[in-house]
């Protein structure tokens, strides 16, 4: 199941470096006390970059909703179809959300509302991505 490989840029390099060490870091504006993901050049509340720092949130979330990709447009993922795409909210701040294919959960058998925890998946030699798995 080859996933598509993220290409870090200047802004996201620290993020992906951390992921490759099996750590999730997201931006926090210490002035606004607001987490934000994906990373942005400035804080979405105050518009400043001065108080942005990387923070490692607790890797806990919940499944808010899901769909099943039956006929997507991404060539590399077509052999995986149908596959789950879940929306995972971060427990620490549910306005921050992530996508997940919920490794190990068969298509259409997604427990909406269930707790999930952070995991990582290798998509290319040395390149991980952050994923979420259902807490048993």
């Amino acid at each position, binding site marked *: 199941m080859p996933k598509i490989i*993220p290409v*870090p840029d200047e802004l996201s390099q620290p993020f992906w470096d951390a992921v490759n060490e099996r750590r999730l870091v997201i931006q926090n504006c210490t002035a606004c006390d607001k987490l934000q993901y*994906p990373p942005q050049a400035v804080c979405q509340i105050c518009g400043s970059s001065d108080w942005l720092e990387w923070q490692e949130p607790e890797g806990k979330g919940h499944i808010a*909703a899901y769909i099943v*990709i039956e006929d*997507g447009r991404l060539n590399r993922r077509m052999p995986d179809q149908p596959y789950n795409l879940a*929306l995972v909210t971060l427990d620490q701040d549910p306005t921050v959300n992530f996508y*997940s294919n919920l490794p190990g959960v068969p298509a259409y058998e997604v427990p909406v509302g269930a707790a999930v925890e952070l995991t990582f998946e290798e998509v290319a030699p040395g390149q991980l*991505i952050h994923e979420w798995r259902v807490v048993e």
Partner: protein
Amino acid sequence: MTSSNDFQWRRDQDGLGVWEHRGQVAIAGYGHSPVDRRWDEKNLDTSLGAYTIMACEKAMEQAGVTIDQVDGIVCCDSHIAGGSGGTASQWAPRPYFDPPYDSEYGLTLINAQWLIDNMGFKNVKFAPTGVPTIGEMVGMASQAVGDGVCSTCLVIYPTGNMEGRYRRGGENADDYARGARQWTVPWGNHGGNDFINIFPHRQYLMKYGGEHEDLVHFVRNQHKNGMLTPWGYNATHNIQPISVEDYIGSRPILNPLRIWDCDRPVNASAAYLFTTSERARDMKSQPVYVLNHSQHNFRFRTTQPDLDEVEMWTDRQAARMYEGAGLGPADVDIFNPYDGYSIMTQFFLEGFQWHGVKRGEALSFYAGDISVKGPHPFSSSGGNLGNGRTRTAMYTDSIEQLRGTAGDRQVTVRAETALCAFTTPSSGGWLMLGKYPS
């Protein structure tokens, strides 16, 4: 030529008050080309260029305007099949024909300069480049005419489609995810309005109740209205409204999103003639007046917009539009929101509270009488689900309803104001039209 960025035309902030040109700008004519499924890359009479010239000529003819009178051209120079499309959008470079079809312009792309060169416009003084989609173009033209930047302005929206599956190839065929795609594509989100809306739609069903399949009443009604739209794809290709069974049994795309929830890409062009209300009164056809235009471009706060965000965005769109038009929900007779995916239209209906529909009430509203002959003629145009992906049916139907020329689609309720749009929950624009200038 000026760039669209050089001209401050947008009304994309909260609290701007009543539009300063309310009722002083009018639409005096429109024209549609035939709507084909695809261009065959051979017949120059059915290329996007030929179809755009045809649409412009019809719009000018309806208004009774000559080539020499046109002093503004606002033309979207995208074929809308998208930048992420491979065979369906990377149509160039390839062998070309004799002039004027010796480049991609005229075949699958149209811009103002190509039209000036090939239609013989001599007095165009406003022909911006980098023109956005129809949802915003109508606002740009309205503001340009209102500000006196030009007085007789053609707005042209070509929509191209050729062989190949839609938006396959290009960056969608890439093994790597670059730029903003690094946050979506590794998990399977190819990016688009389908993904923007499908999660909020799922949350909507969980929050308010109802099943995805309840949308069939809306989709069927769009098909019915499309069959009453003589120029549209469905009517010209005899696409009969689907049955409930057909809908439920249809192919899943992004389950629960089905094929019949998606509009059909087409090859077509449309043109509208905007002018001052003063000039429009002396033109050949009954004018309809622009009461307000508004735009929005809301930023996602995180990876995926959720229901709360989409509801907030559509509330703000409604507030901006109603304030600028000096009207409220009860004043809107004709309502033609965007329906390119059926799953988003309820957000607009409820945000604008048309016919009193509040949050969570859209599905039961759809299950009632929303036919054009009934008391709640919702989306009388048939939109894009009913006419193909022209993104213009909402505008044309609104004009026709206000003029009383919608034929079999003519509503039986009052038709003095019309609200129409091509917009997603996050970005696009709205246009309020009136039978009367005030």
